């Protein structure tokens, strides 16, 4: 990677850490940052249909910093088998999945299927103004520190020093309500920093 241009001091750069938490791509004056803070995981487990089994599986999830979103289990009355299928949806910090899998297996529980998904709600907005000089890392941090929303992509274009720059910021959340809250925060921060925010026209639902 060749770093050109004029990055202000204190600009947060973590390059291609092994768990993929940050990648920084520099293309001329356009900077794109992809950030993966949390992943959404859906797993289907087969466990013994005995008291306490389900609770024992949930423990390693919270130990790994996971946040359980849904637990779906359905007992089939016709079933002769003494096992139970359970589907769990959870949020997990990036890079923790391998540890969680081995802990669950150690409990004697079979993992039938596993799927990793990013936060499902995604919205891109465009900001215009003195984005760098008004502390862009703070702008991003105001979203990230909420715990329910994260900035997953930031594309910045700077035509010339001292001219207004433009940035496309992509926010991800687990649901629509969190998205509205995150966008409200961004609007408020941008207002304070005298940045214009161009929002998408939402689908009418």
């Amino acid at each position: 990677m060749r770093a050109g241009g004029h990055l202000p001091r204190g600009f947060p750069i973590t390059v291609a850490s092994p768990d993929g938490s940050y990648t920084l791509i520099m293309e001329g004056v356009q900077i794109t940052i992809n950030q993966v803070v949390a992943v959404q995981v859906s797993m289907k487990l087969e466990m013994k249909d005995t008291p306490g089994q389900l609770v024992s599986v949930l423990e390693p999830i919270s130990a790994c910093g996971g946040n359980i979103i849904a637990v779906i289990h359905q007992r089939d009355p016709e079933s002769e088998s003494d096992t139970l299928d359970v589907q769990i949806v959870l949020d997990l910090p990036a890079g923790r999945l391998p540890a969680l899998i081995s802990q669950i297996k150690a409990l004697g529980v079979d993992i039938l299927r596993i799927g990793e998904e990013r936060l499902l709600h995604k919205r891109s907005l465009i900001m215009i103004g003195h984005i760098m000089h008004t502390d862009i890392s703070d702008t991003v941090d105001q979203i990230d520190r909420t715990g329910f929303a994260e900035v997953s992509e930031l594309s910045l274009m700077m035509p010339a020093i001292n001219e207004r720059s433009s940035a496309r910021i992509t926010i991800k959340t687990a649901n629509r309500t969190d998205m509205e809250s995150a966008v409200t925060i961004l609007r408020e921060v941008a207002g304070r920093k005298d940045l214009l925010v161009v929002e998408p026209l939402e689908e009418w639902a």
Partner: protein
Amino acid sequence: MRVALLGFGSVGRGVARMLGEKDLPFTLTAIADSKGGIIDPKGVSIPEAFSRKEKSGSCGRPKLSALDIVESDAYDILVEVTPTNIETGEPALAHIRKALGLRRHVVTSNKGPIALAHRELMELARKQGVALRYEATVCGAIPIIHTLQHGLLGNDVKALFGVMNGTCNYILTRMEDEGLTYDQALGEAQEMGYAEKDPTYDVKGLDTALKLVILANTVWGMDTRMKDIQVTGIDLITPEAIQLAMDQETAIRLIGEAIPSKDLLRVSPRIIPRNHPLLVEGTLNALTVVTDMAGELTFIGKGAGSIETASAVIGDLLYIRERYAGRP
């Protein structure tokens, strides 16, 4: 029916031309512009009015004013198409009040009086048993007012949003197609006659806000004013922002939106997917209406232009004739 025409600019001339060329059941008995007027109970010669305007700068004679015509007995329907004043609505507001007071129907393209005094004027028209129609105030040729007042009767309108200013749409389209800066695209729009010398009214979103006021007051019977609308224009949009939108198969357009359930009345530049029905090019307008029974409807058409706007005025005139002709 007898028609008096106030205003002989782009819209007024379009109306006069169509009244002259098309076989319509109206007699144009009076015309006035800011410099003078003419009354002829047997019908004003439209070609002569055009040639007077070209030679002397006025379609009529200096001794006769617009207000003289409004106060005369020469007409049944007043067509008020003088230039808009968004601060006071004058002189159109006085013309319309006077005509309604004299139990004459009024058709207008003038946004000022309708945005400033919709409730008062509609109430006055109702009391006097006459019609006040203003199709031409919003989105030129698109029959949106008629659709909302008649075509969608029985529906609950839940939201209204769209591209309502051709000047802004032209500027944004040119920035997108040619990579022009805002200033370059504005300069081109001015050269093409799509933008005024002072473009503030269009590019700051005020024109769209006025239209939103008129629509909201028409659909929901609100008493909304300009100050109730959050307005952001397009004058700060950068070519880079347009590029960033294009990278994701989207575009930026100035959108006016009214959603009463969210208490939302807003004019702002927005990101729209490339395949969205509201994403129109050039000076076109596009408007989506969301209703409970009919679902979503989107109208696309020319939002300005002499004959296009005359289409809206003529439609209102014929509506009035159908409803009121032959009544005492």
